[in-house]
């Protein structure tokens, strides 16, 4: 391999490792079969790799319920809502329950406008979402 090729490969590996770190930080199992994905900052089409990787990690680890955590959400455009729709479709195909918590009034309105609130159980807190995910709500 050429020196340029080595540099490109190193950068790709570093970027991949960095993304894995981001994914690790964003997804956590909080109860058997219940995974939380932390969604923070800007959610746009550019978020696809990280969010899909986080969902895939949870799904391949046996998630029965996926809880989307939104308190850190600062900005979402149409690409971002499209990304959430894609995750929701995949979860439905995999027969996984999807819940959400921490949505501001603004983003709750967007979920209502797009009627995503009919497919996603929306809760005020992580504890409330987890109670439902665990069949206690």
């Amino acid at each position: 391999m050429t020196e340029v090729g080595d540099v490109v490969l190193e950068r790709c590996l570093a970027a991949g490792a960095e993304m894995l770190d981001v994914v690790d930080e964003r997804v956590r199992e909080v109860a058997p079969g219940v995974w939380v994905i932390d969604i923070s900052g800007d959610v746009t089409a550019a978020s696809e790799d990280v969010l899909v990787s986080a969902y895939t990690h949870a799904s391949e680890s046996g998630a029965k319920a996926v809880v989307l955590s939104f308190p850190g959400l600062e900005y979402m455009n149409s690409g971002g809502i499209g990304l959430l729709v894609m995750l929701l479709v995949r979860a439905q195909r995999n027969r996984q329950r999807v819940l959400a918590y921490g949505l501001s009034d603004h983003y709750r309105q967007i979920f209502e406008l797009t009627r995503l609130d009919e497919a996603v159980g929306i809760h005020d807190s992580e504890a409330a979402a987890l109670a439902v995910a665990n069949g206690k709500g």
Partner: protein
Amino acid sequence: MADQSPRDAQSWAKPVTELHVGDIPQGATNIDVDGRRLTSPIQGFGKKWQKTYTVRIPAQIVSPEELIATWKQRFPEFWPEGNRFYGPLTGNAPGDVALLSMTLPGGMKLSTGVMVLYADERSFTS
């Protein structure tokens, strides 16, 4: 929870309980849009709900803002033969409702409508 008016607030359509079509352009059919509720993208088009097409356009030729401005303004001109988009004259602002007349495979006609959910200087979604 307190709402902090995020910077995308002006780009999203305001909540509506039902759709309202303004002036109906000549040739458009409004039989299942006015007074109806929006349909969720989850329910809308089944497995065909999303298609992604990518075209690389160097920024030296046209900026993203110029491209989207043109696309919004002339959107009705970009539909394939046999399909019509009857959009508002305002050019695809959040909350605008447009009527569609489409020819499906086999020649079947479909009349429906869309609402602009989101629009900013670099994107828009109906």
